[in-house]
């Protein structure tokens, strides 16, 4: 028996695995990580199974320790993470000595960090998944975000695990943590350069401008040509009313050519739907399984992690790509993850 002891929970720290698949037919949302890249990468760095449960940390991080020596990895949003007076390195396996506080300090970049533990968080699965469904209060750890004094089950160390060299080093060094070598290729694939320069924003943006690529959706042609032009050339600002369910965007209103009678249908991760007020919403990890607003497009899967790391106040430029391009970019994403997994295994051997 090994547990993660929570001294400070952070603002909104949730267990998420690769999502609750198979229950959308019952109206159960998928949930899962907002940033699939970082969550899967953190697991890959430890040699975990795909879809092992990780801790998604949003905006402010927790302070935790483990009852036994624990191999961990942190990916995603950058925080000043401390183990004693030393910074915890990102994007590699780290063996943390038992009862040593892991303290998330100031956030430097991005919205969500992912903490993986060797073997994955070991709470009971609900409907086949350990993802937290906050609205339904099930899954994850007691169906909710972490709270102070929680003790979250994690796997005990097993004999014969990879990382023996690291374990020896921890014993011999007497240090609070030892880390495996850095793994190359832990950054998302870069975006192509932008041309021409974007039109000025009509909504004041406080943050930076990001780019997301999208596939035009089934109702694309039903939007006015002005709406099509605005959506692909003007920045849209992420509103404060954005959460794990959806990112609400503010910008030029997107009008239909004429009113549409819509029947609710599937809304996958990244669906950009447009309610009657013309302000688009990108549906994220906690979206409902179906929805009835016109869909102007789908953010490509390969760019969803970028979006998941964007903060309210930042603005987005939407760049159209073809279905084929989107699918090729996703395979590139998967290939990069596989390479990182292989490199991590070599680093631990």
């Amino acid at each position, binding site marked *: 028996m090994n547990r993660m002891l929570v001294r400070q929970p952070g603002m909104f720290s949730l267990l998420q695995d690769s999502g609750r698949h198979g*229950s959308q*037919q019952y*109206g159960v949302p998928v949930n899962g990580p907002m940033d699939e890249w970082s969550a899967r990468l953190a697991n890959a760095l430890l040699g975990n199974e795909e879809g092992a449960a990780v801790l998604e940390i949003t905006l402010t991080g927790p302070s935790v320790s483990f009852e036994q020596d624990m191999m961990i990895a942190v990916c995603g949003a950058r925080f000043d993470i401390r183990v004693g007076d030393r910074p915890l390195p990102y994007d590699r396996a780290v063996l943390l000595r038992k009862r040593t506080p892991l303290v998330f300090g100031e956030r430097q970049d991005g919205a969500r960090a992912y903490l993986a533990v060797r073997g994955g968080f070991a709470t009971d699965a609900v409907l086949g998944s350990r993802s937290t469904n906050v609205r339904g209060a099930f899954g994850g750890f007691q169906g909710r975000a972490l709270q102070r004094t929680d003790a979250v089950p994690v796997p005990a160390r097993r004999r014969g695990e990879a990382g023996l060299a690291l374990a020896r080093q921890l014993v011999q060094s007497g240090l609070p943590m030892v880390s495996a070598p850095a793994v190359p290729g832990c950054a998302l694939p870069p975006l192509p350069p932008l041309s021409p320069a974007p039109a000025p924003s009509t909504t004041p943006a406080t943050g930076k401008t990001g780019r997301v690529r999208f596939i035009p959706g089934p109702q694309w042609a039903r939007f006015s040509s002005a709406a099509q032009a605005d959506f692909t050339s003007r920045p849209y600002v992420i509103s404060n009313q954005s959460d794990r369910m959806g990112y609400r965007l503010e910008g030029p209103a997107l009008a239909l050519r004429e009113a549409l009678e819509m029947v609710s249908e599937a809304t996958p991760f990244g*669906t950009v739907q447009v309610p009657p007020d013309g302000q688009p919403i990108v549906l994220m990890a906690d979206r409902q399984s179906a929805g009835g607003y016109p869909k102007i497009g789908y953010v490509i899967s390969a760019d969803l992690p970028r979006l998941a790391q964007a903060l309210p106040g930042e603005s987005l430029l939407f760049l159209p790509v073809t*279905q*084929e391009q989107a699918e090729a970019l996703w395979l590139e994403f*998967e290939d990069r993850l596989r390479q990182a997994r292989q490199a991590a295994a070599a680093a631990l051997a």
Partner: protein
Amino acid sequence: MTKIPPPAASAAASAFAVPAPQDSPQVDFDRKTSMTSHQIEAVGDRCLLVRLGDKAGIETSRTVHAVVALLQKKLTTGIVEIVPAFTTVAVHYQPLAFPRGRGPASRQLAKQIETLLARGVEPLADSGRLVEIPACYGGEFGPDLDDVARQVDLSPEEVVAIHASLPLTVYAFFFSPGNPFAGPVDPRLQVPRRKSPRTLVPAGSVAIANGITSIYQSASPGGWNLIARTPWNLFDIHASPPTRLQLADRLVFKPVDEAQFAALLEPRP
């Protein structure tokens, strides 16, 4: 002037033991329906949508459920899950599972689905379940009942009698876990959604809009017309399946009074 509903509806409403519904079509189990009217489209880069109609209704729903059963049985490689909606079937897939060099995964999977649908779709046997679901109409539990009655030019009692007369087929679950959508609601009760949605609809609320009845399984914001409330809980993560109702179930609402409602009230987890 209040229109009088035809005798069939009021007769059925007065006797809650509901006879076999007349709208249940004869199903010929030897016949396979050739799927000529469908359309497969990619929705994003990890999901296909099979479009089987453009209006919610019993026939379309029957086809949707039959196609879900077929695809769940026949598609094996790379399928994440298959999800029915009113007129469409969503096939969520894992692109990595499809061989490279044979074109985009979406096209490979669409071809497989085309082939399966071209061979014909076995009609599903009716679920055989007729579910009587208690509902307390009007008052605090159905605050929009009077307004609905005014809109359709009937008395509240007539609205209740009509709504509780014929079975409604469960088309799909979404909005919240276990939240059913069922129809068709009698055309005499055709009302749109409310102009201004409520910020909080109590759990259990029975609502109608655009020819469909839904039951708010969880308390949430909502814009439908609330005509009743059921004491039943419809979702339990520990049950298998977790929904109390099933796709294609035929629901008959059984009016109960407040005392009966209180006696039947189930805790919601």
